[in-house]
């Protein structure tokens, strides 16, 4: 027990150190490339760091940006672990936000934030989960692969949201697809005043830890992992495979939907159909965090810091496009993948958990 626990910690520490090294090298290379293009490197790095973590406010906006990424990352991570290739976090995220804004604007007449906020968050989560179940239903009973239906359902959700935002949920006096701004008392409360630290961040962190405990220490989590590794084995062990897949899909969709609701009530406060590509980015977050909820916390924070810093650099006089952050993320993922593939062949058993479900049901 002792040895196993510390053995795990040791290998995790090596993995984290390696990841940090790769991130550092890629960041240094990126800044070097920017220097070649004529941007002052020291000033760039300085602006980036300050923009991401130079003050309480900067730190809070990085964390607030990481929050939806954490939730969509969990959505992808939970599902992939169980062999359910849910690419639909984007649509589930949007529908979560849509449900939250609908519930909030309709329930404002009660003047009860303590009632409205939890209902909106819960509603968002349930909407995301149900949207996920549609895909799982199609897979189970109509043999439509989840990868495929979730991609298509993302677009359906997008147009549904736009129709609602230009129809019943549209703000008065605008032609754009946009909801009215939610009144201040229905925003998620801040736990540090005058920052972006809203309680949604804490909620997301608690959820991540909870999911980790369930995944590692419960029968449900064990069964979900076996289902992901090999459905045939799971069936032979008399596990309820179909039920587990549906439950995992619901949890996954609910995470993404909750992410949308939290982003709406905590950060943006009014809805458009362009709430960012958090759903798709969540897949990268989950994979960088190696599908482990705790790893996903770290990778989402990293993505949040990179993005927020990059936006501040874009707003500054340097005007370096913020998309630089996306390029850096992509390069980091690629380099880490290659390193994992080349050098860690001996410890591939741990990787198997990551790759096996993909091999199992990839189209």
């Amino acid at each position, binding site marked *: 027990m002792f040895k196993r626990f510390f053995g795990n910690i040791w290998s995790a520490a090596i993995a984290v150190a390696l990841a940090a090294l790769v991130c550092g090298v890629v960041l240094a290379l990126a800044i070097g490339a920017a220097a070649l293009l004529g941007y002052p490197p020291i000033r760039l790095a300085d602006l980036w760091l300050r923009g991401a973590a130079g003050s309480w406010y900067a730190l809070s906006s990085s964390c607030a940006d990481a929050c939806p990424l954490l939730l969509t990352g969990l959505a992808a991570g939970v599902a992939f672990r169980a062999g359910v290739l849910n690419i639909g976090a984007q649509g589930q995220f949007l529908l979560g936000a849509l449900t939250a804004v609908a519930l909030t604007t309709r329930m404002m007449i009660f003047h009860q934030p303590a009632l409205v906020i939890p209902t909106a968050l819960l509603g968002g989560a349930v909407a995301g989960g149900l949207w996920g179940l549609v895909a799982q239903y199609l897979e189970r009973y109509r043999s439509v692969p989840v990868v495929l239906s979730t991609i298509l359902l993302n677009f359906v959700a997008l147009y549904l949201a736009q129709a609602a935002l230009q129809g019943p949920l549209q703000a008065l006096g605008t032609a754009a697809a946009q909801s009215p701004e939610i009144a201040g008392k229905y925003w998620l409360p801040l736990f540090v005043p005058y920052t972006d630290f809203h309680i949604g961040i804490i909620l997301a962190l608690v959820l991540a830890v909870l999911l980790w405990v369930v995944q590692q220490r419960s029968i449900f989590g064990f069964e979900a992992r076996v289902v992901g590794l090999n459905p045939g084995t799971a069936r032979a062990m008399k596990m309820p495979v179909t039920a587990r897949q549906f439950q995992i899909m619901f949890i996954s969709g609910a995470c993404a939907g909750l992410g949308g609701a939290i982003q709406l009530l905590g950060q943006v406060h009014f809805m458009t159909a362009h709430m960012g*590509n958090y759903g798709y980015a969540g897949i990268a977050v989950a994979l960088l965090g190696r599908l482990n909820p705790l790893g996903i916390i770290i990778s989402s924070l990293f993505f949040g810091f990179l993005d927020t810093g990059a936006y501040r650099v874009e707003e500054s006089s340097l005007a370096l496009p913020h998309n630089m952050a996306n390029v850096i993320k992509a390069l980091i993922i690629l380099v880490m993948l290659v390193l994992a593939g080349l050098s860690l062949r001996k410890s*591939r058993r741990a990787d198997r958990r990551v790759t096996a479900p993909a091999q199992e049901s990839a189209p």
Partner: protein
Amino acid sequence: MTASHNMITFLSRQALTAATPMILAGVGELVGELSGVINIGIEGTMLMGCIAAYTVTGVSNHGTVGLLAAIAAGMVMAMIFAAACVWGRADQIVAGTAMDLLGVGLSGMVWMMYQNWRENLGFSTALPHGSGFSRVPIPLLHQIAFLGPVFFDQYALCYITLCLCVVVWWVLRHTRLGLIIGALGDAPEACHAAGVRVRMGRSLCLLFAGACSGAAGAYLSIMQTHAFATNMTGGQGFVVLALVIFGRWKLPGIIGGCLFFGLINSLQQTLQTARYTSQNTALHALTHVPFQFFQMLPYLAAIVALAIMSRKAPGPRYINVPWPEVKT
């Protein structure tokens, strides 16, 4: 010629126009997947094709140069992907997501820098007049009823795509090369035993796929629209991915899927305007339906079609299994 006849001709023509980039990218993706490599990142590659074609056309004043640049950009993306997945043994799904991010990031970045640069020089960022492509009606043939407007009044790349489809179909079906490509994904051991270099073969297939996706991107930016916008592919890359599964890894099936998707898309676009102008009461009643529901139609139709067909095909056996396999 009746009005409805005209309408059907017009719809079919628009369907082929809209389906061309998807067919092109789909042919490439099919070859890649048959060789055992699935590339989730075609969206990113197409975006790189869009931006490369647009900027190079803008600078060089020649659409053809832009098209070649797009193909080159697609091939560079494919090389990065092949380096990671074929030679570096990376997981293809993960690396594909990274390639998508890379394409979105890099194209957005280049676009912003290009705008700044052109504006500093005092140039417009619009394409120089006449440098983009327009439709090329084929002499005589385009006058044939129905077939003429549909097949012989398209963009140049559409003709090339159709020829490419025939060639690829023939190669896959009737030649030794096609046999090898299929075997790379179904029985790499056998390829190896027969003296075929598996990793090289897969890399070449990916290069072909990258060139196709890049050209598809160029089609979107310098043929169909003459404009660039960030994320202008709007998910078409993902739809292509879906259509390859939809077509069960068979070229005619994929082309059929693309045309079906393009047809529903042009149908909904026409319906959106027709419901206001038409005298037909049934059509006119549709004015109360939000236009987003029309935009949703192609995706819904694809889901419904899949649900009705309701049969899974297994696909190439060694997708996402790096070569040589490590025995654990």
